[in-house]
């Protein structure tokens, strides 16, 4: 948090300023809603257009916007994106920083205990698996977007490649999950390199568009290559994972029979939970290690300044390709897990919506921050489930929460950057200095 006194004094509460801003908001709302809410049209009994006005509703909405915008302005001046450090008292800050240090180990320990605590609650276990899948996808994309600063809108393509790799290898050749898992990762990494080559010269918006197109191409190929992928019907009967060859089935050769315990379908869910947890932790461990290796530092340097990288003799082409390949490989692992968990995949699971969701997790978490991405995945996937009771207003509440978060924390939940090497003190680097990359 940079304390800038000049900026704060200019933000001092001023009734006229708030009133002016709220009036403008109300005016915009009036223009916007006068047709959307103020006038209601409908086809009459003979097909002609009938309409009636609802000025009362319109007035209520505009008043709500006016009042709401006053409240938001007051709230912003009380809390504000720049002056949190000034308002929060020192003891609270100390407690917050302690909580910040403890949150990762506590969260990890809790995750390990989830199957024990919620053994009977299938819904929570399923949700946990879903959240962990997105944590893993977020960590994978974080390598590309957060570290290397390359905006990738087609990440779902690698997820799809991984899923179909496992599904097709397992159904056609009968290969086991543990052989297919590395193969799925390698194939996805291969496609990552393949995507990387043509887009290396592109930056920023252009890169985003091409990666978006790549994601769509993969999906369309999956739909149209009927003979191989089954087209829109997808692949069914994908084998369930085994515990290194021991199936988790009620049969005599199943794990339950071997251990001499009663079979329960929950065993498989718990196994899947720990499987995705292990995969996600592998992703995290590799990423943390890579950051401290020359390749990881080169990724971050690339995000900071590509020209300077080249002046230092760094081959930016291979550096970008390794970032794409590494991110894609983790996406492929996650895809293989997805296929084995579902037992059925179709192109419908790999739409742009998934790419956008994973990207939102990375951006919301704070680009480059491992803990931030995990928290954001928990909030995005778990939080979304939390609002299930709100039915159609769920998206509204969710969107509002995201807007508020971006006002409060414009660089994501954890925006600062931890240095990869230090002499004496490891001090977080303010997000003001860290670049976002230009693609």
């Amino acid at each position, binding site marked *: 948090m940079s304390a800038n006194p000049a900026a704060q004094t200019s933000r001092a509460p001023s009734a006229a300023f708030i009133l002016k801003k709220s009036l403008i908001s109300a005016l915009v709302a009036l223009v916007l809603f006068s047709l959307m809410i103020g006038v209601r049209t409908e086809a009459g009994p003979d097909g002609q257009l009938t309409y009636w006005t609802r000025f009362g509703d319109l007035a209520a909405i505009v008043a709500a916007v006016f009042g709401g915008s006053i409240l938001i302005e007051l709230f912003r001046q009380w809390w504000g994106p720049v002056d949190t450090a000034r308002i929060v008292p020192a003891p609270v800050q100390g407690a917050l920083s302690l909580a910040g240090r403890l949150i990762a180990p506590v969260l990890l320990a809790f995750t390990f205990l989830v199957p024990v605590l919620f053994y009977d609650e299938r819904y929570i276990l399923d949700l946990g698996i879903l959240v962990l899948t997105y944590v893993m996808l977020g960590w994978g994309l974080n390598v590309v977007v957060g570290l290397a600063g390359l905006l990738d809108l087609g990440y779902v393509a690698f997820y799809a490649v991984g899923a179909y790799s496992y599904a097709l290898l397992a159904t056609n050749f009968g290969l086991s999950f543990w052989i297919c898992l590395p193969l799925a990762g390698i194939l996805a990494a291969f496609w990552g390199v393949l995507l990387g080559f043509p887009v290396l010269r592109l930056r920023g918006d252009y890169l985003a568009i091409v990666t978006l197109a790549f994601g769509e191409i993969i999906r369309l190929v999956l739909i149209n290559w009927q003979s191989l992928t089954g087209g829109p019907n997808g692949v069914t009967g994908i084998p369930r994972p085994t515990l290194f060859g021991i199936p988790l089935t009620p049969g005599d050769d199943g794990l339950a029979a071997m251990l001499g315990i009663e079979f329960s379908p929950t065993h498989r869910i718990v196994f899947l939970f720990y499987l995705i947890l292990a995969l996600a932790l592998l992703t995290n461990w*590799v990423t943390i*290690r*890579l950051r401290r*290796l*020359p*390749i990881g*530092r*080169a990724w*971050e*340097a690339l995000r*900071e*300044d590509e*020209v*300077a*990288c*080249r*002046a*230092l*003799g*760094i*081959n*930016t082409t291979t550096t970008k390709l*390794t970032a794409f390949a590494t991110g894609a490989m983790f996406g492929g692992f996650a895809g293989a897990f997805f296929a084995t968990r579902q037992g059925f995949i179709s192109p419908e699971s790999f739409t742009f919506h998934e790419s956008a969701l994973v990207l939102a997790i990375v951006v919301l978490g704070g680009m480059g921050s491992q803990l931030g991405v995990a928290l954001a995945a928990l909030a995005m996937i778990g939080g979304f489930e939390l609002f299930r009771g709100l039915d159609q207003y769920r998206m509204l509440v969710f969107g509002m929460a995201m807007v508020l978060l971006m006002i409060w924390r414009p660089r994501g939940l954890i925006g600062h*950057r931890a*240095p*990869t*090497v*230090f*002499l*004496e*003190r*490891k*001090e977080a*680097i*303010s997000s003001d*200095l*860290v*670049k976002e990359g230009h693609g």
Partner: protein
Amino acid sequence: MSGDSILSVDRLSMRFGGIVAVNDLSFNAERRKITALIGPNGAGKTTVFNCITGFYKPSSGAIGLTHDDGHAIRLERLDDFRIAKLAKVARTFQNIRLFPGMTALENLMVAQHNALMRASGLTFLGLIGAPSWRTAEQAAIDLATTWLDRIGLLDRADDAAGNLPYGDQRRLEIARAMCTEPALLCLDEPAAGLNARESAALSELLLSIRADQGTSILLIEHDMSVVMEISDHVVVMDHGVKIAEGTPKHIRDDPKVIAAYLGTDEEEAIAVMESGT
């Protein structure tokens, strides 16, 4: 020019569409010497630099670099990063290009990328934490620490580069270039924006780099106090062509150079000089 030259620029031309930025320029830079490239704004100095370091491909001409062991490399054929990696030419930029969100130490570690990539077995040995990698990493940190000490930034090693004062950033950029262990160091206006005391410290640093590392230095500079104090050889450019070269003393008294800087005719410049003395 006789002697042992590390860099020879031969009939270099660079055109951007119809504009001729550099026209038929030839000069040599001697080994373990400081060569200065000076000239008024828009003379084409930075273009020459970008050609030497591969950021531009010259329209015509040759740029040759000869290492200490006699190994000769044609720079105009190489990509920018290969010039830094294989030909060992390091450069700094007119507008500082550090990695602002990384610490000073990290900036110097990135500079040792190629050596560290080899040591980490293209990442794989590093990933499993092999002992050979650990030694190499510690050696890299030691080298970075040495340079931080030399530029007087050891106590700010863990600060973000973007948070350092301007003068420190300039010195850090030079240290970062030196961490690539170059044969030729190209500095684009290293004294720009520095005060007199900082300029003097910079001169000292460059002289010590030449003396201790034996690195040849090519610099573009507008600050004549720095140029005259440390250069062994000065090349003067104007409008893309070389108008003079020689020792600093020789250049100082050259009417053509003064005319170029004052923007007047040669005769007038001579008159100005004579009236001055």
